[in-house]
């Protein structure tokens, strides 16, 4: 049946994460932005509390076979919780310890041994991160044009190349890196590797400064004759042999996007909601109760509230499809495309409501700077449109 109601468990998760966002994240939000980092002691504290950014419930692997009889809800819980955490602060949300965006490819494509080895390190003793490295200086939206090479050698592979815009890339214990065995093979030549911190030839060359999300680390990574043992080829040789006719490495990358886009959409929704709630509170307290300004505010806020709800329902639908094991690429792209753009527009509306006062020490200007990238990373708005259009035209046999 159709329902938009949260279960008791979902409500509890929402309330718990909201409490954490409100009491632990929001109070340090502006300070973390000013510092350009999340304080280490804070990260250590929340890690001991067991709070992590976990996006790896997506992926549809076999890990949940035990739950086959019971409907999975990890994806829905993921987007519900993520919205609340991002409401607290998106840069801090992205900085939370955990496998992060590197989790889904390992969860969906890794061998049992790899899952155990890489996903079990996120313990309470100290904060650790995972990362996902696809983008390169010459390969952004066109992920099939990856230039980083992987040369097969005895016992493993040698990686050479550069990755940019990698969230938590410098501090990560391991990074899922996409490279090509043979550029002439295109997508079919791609493979995914797990590169561990400290491996010879692997380095973080730069932490970039950004418009927003300043508290979150964005790294450039370099691979110089970096040897990766066979056991770190994601999924092992078997994965690629069994799917010899398919571009498996590329598929791993794309499948990850189908999984993580709803999470990113949920973050954008959290940001939009934070800006909306901040602004409606100000209108209630400080605006005149009649007149043109009041009417304008009513209109702007109604638009904002509606778009936030619309984005949330698209995101829930994408997560629901993932939970019930149905292809969700179109819905995931819809959620990301709409939420990313919507969240910026909501922040713009909220800045309009605040007027010039919004420039000085108010949360909304920070959210405005933060939110822009949500229409860019994990696939730009234009790429999401392409994904949606491809699915829309698929029944007619036209590939756009």
């Amino acid at each position, binding site marked *: 049946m*159709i329902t938009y109601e949260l279960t008791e468990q979902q409500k509890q998760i929402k309330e718990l994460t909201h409490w954490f966002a409100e009491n632990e994240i929001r109070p340090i939000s502006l300070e973390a932005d000013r510092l350009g980092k999340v304080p280490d002691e804070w990260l250590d504290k929340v890690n001991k509390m067991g709070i992590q950014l976990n996006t790896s419930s997506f992926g549809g692997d076999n890990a949940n076979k035990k739950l086959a009889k019971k409907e999975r809800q990890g994806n829905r819980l993921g987007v519900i919780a993520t919205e609340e955490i991002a409401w607290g602060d998106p840069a801090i949300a992205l900085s939370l310890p955990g496998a992060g965006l590197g989790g889904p490819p390992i969860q969906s494509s890794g061998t049992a041994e790899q899952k155990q080895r890489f996903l079990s390190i996120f313990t309470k003793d100290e904060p650790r991160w995972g990362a996902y490295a696809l983008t390169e200086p010459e390969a952004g939206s066109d992920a099939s044009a990856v230039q980083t090479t992987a040369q097969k050698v005895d016992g493993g592979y040698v990686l050479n190349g550069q990755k940019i815009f990698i969230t938590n890339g410098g501090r990560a214990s391991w990074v899922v890196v996409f490279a090509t065995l043979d550029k002439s093979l295109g997508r079919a030549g791609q493979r995914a590797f797990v590169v561990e911190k400290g491996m010879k030839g692997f380095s973080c060359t730069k932490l970039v400064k950004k418009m927003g999300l300043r508290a979150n680390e964005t790294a450039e990574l370099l691979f110089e004759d970096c040897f990766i043992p066979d056991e770190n080829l994601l999924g092992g040789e078997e994965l690629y042999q069994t799917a010899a006719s398919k571009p498996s490495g590329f598929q791993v990358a794309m499948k990850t996007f189908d999984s993580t886009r709803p999470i990113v959409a949920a973050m954008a929704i959290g940001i939009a909601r934070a800006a909306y709630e901040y602004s409606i509170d100000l209108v209630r307290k400080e605006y005149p109760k009649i007149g043109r300004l009041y009417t304008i505010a009513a209109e702007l806020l109604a638009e904002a509230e509606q778009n936030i709800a619309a984005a949330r329902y*698209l995101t829930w639908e994408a997560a629901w499809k993932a939970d019930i094991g149905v292809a969700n690429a179109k819905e995931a792209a819809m959620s990301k495309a709409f939420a990313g753009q919507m969240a910026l527009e909501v922040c713009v509306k909220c800045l309009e409501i605040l007027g010039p006062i919004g420039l000085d020490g108010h949360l909304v200007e920070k959210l405005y700077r933060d939110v822009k990238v949500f229409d860019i990373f994990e696939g730009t708005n234009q790429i999401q*449109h392409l994904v*949606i259009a491809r699915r829309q035209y698929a029944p007619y046999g036209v590939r756009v």
Partner: protein
Amino acid sequence: MTSFLPTDEEKEFIHVAKDIAIDKIRPVAREVEKNQVVDAFLVGELDELGFLALETPENWEGIELPLITQVQILQALSYGDLGVIQGLPGLGDAATLFRLCPDHPLLATYKDDIIHSKKTVALLDLTGNATVTIENKNDGWLINGITQPVRLASFADYIVVLGRDLDGLPLVMWVEVAEQQNLKVEFGDYRLGLLASGLGKYEFENVYVAEELILASDEEALQLIEKIRPRVQLLQAAKEVGLMEAALDYATEYTAGRKAFGQEIAKFQGVSFRIADMAMETRIANHLVWQAALEVDEDKASAGGSVIRALYRAHRSVRYVTDSAVQLLGGHGYVQEYPVEKWMRDAQAQVSLYGREKELLIQRGEQLIGGGTIGVNVR
């Protein structure tokens, strides 16, 4: 748990409705528009399947479905053609009154006539209409003035009037058209869309409504109106979603087949991205309608606001999606050999009939700022 899967029963309904929409409704849409009336055979067929009585209570020989089921069925039917659906006779928007007052003694006296003679009832909402007055006179009320265009007015046998008298008393009134010599219908000059929907303006000239024809008054009337309006608004919004789905599918198929500059025009991103936007808007309007329907079914305090939100978005989206369909078909979209020009006209007429967009938006915003979860105000 959040879920978007219709029940098996709903799937059955949707399947039948969609089939009839494609096989029976769409093929006759142009003819219906030209004749400005829905063919009696088609009406009979839809009636037999129960599609004219989704909202009607069981003791009025209706199906009395939950709103969440109704909106899905109406979406499916309107996928055929909104203009045809809006021209269907019967209880129309007034069905909700019967749903909410199934055992009303006044309505009971008309039961045989309405059910067996297949009479049509129009719903006239005069709240906020300054051009028509209701004045208390001699144990009854006098209605004067000319209404705005009302759907089904040109062939309705009865009218349910919602409004307030000059003293501010909320009223729900029953008017039998044939019994009122001073009541006329101005048929008008409608060209934009929904041409088979029986649009007409009522001209009231000292039309007397006796006390015994008052279905509800005062607080009872207020509560009734507050329950009728959101249901009507939502059912209309659902029809708009069905029209959007039709326009989206039609434009997708057309652009997948149409070639220019040596390739399918779908391969140009100016085209395919517009299709993607249409798909998103359609899905969004769909979600907001479903979510509001569930809230109304559950009688939630927030339902009124959710309905306004859904109707506003459906209005905005149906204009965008139908306009986009015309745009993507280019010159073909503008001519009557293709259905999309009609759909764009019907969409705009529908939006004009069922609530001004800005007013809905501001009303919703005021609710949000006020922090209330109120229903729909009767002004």
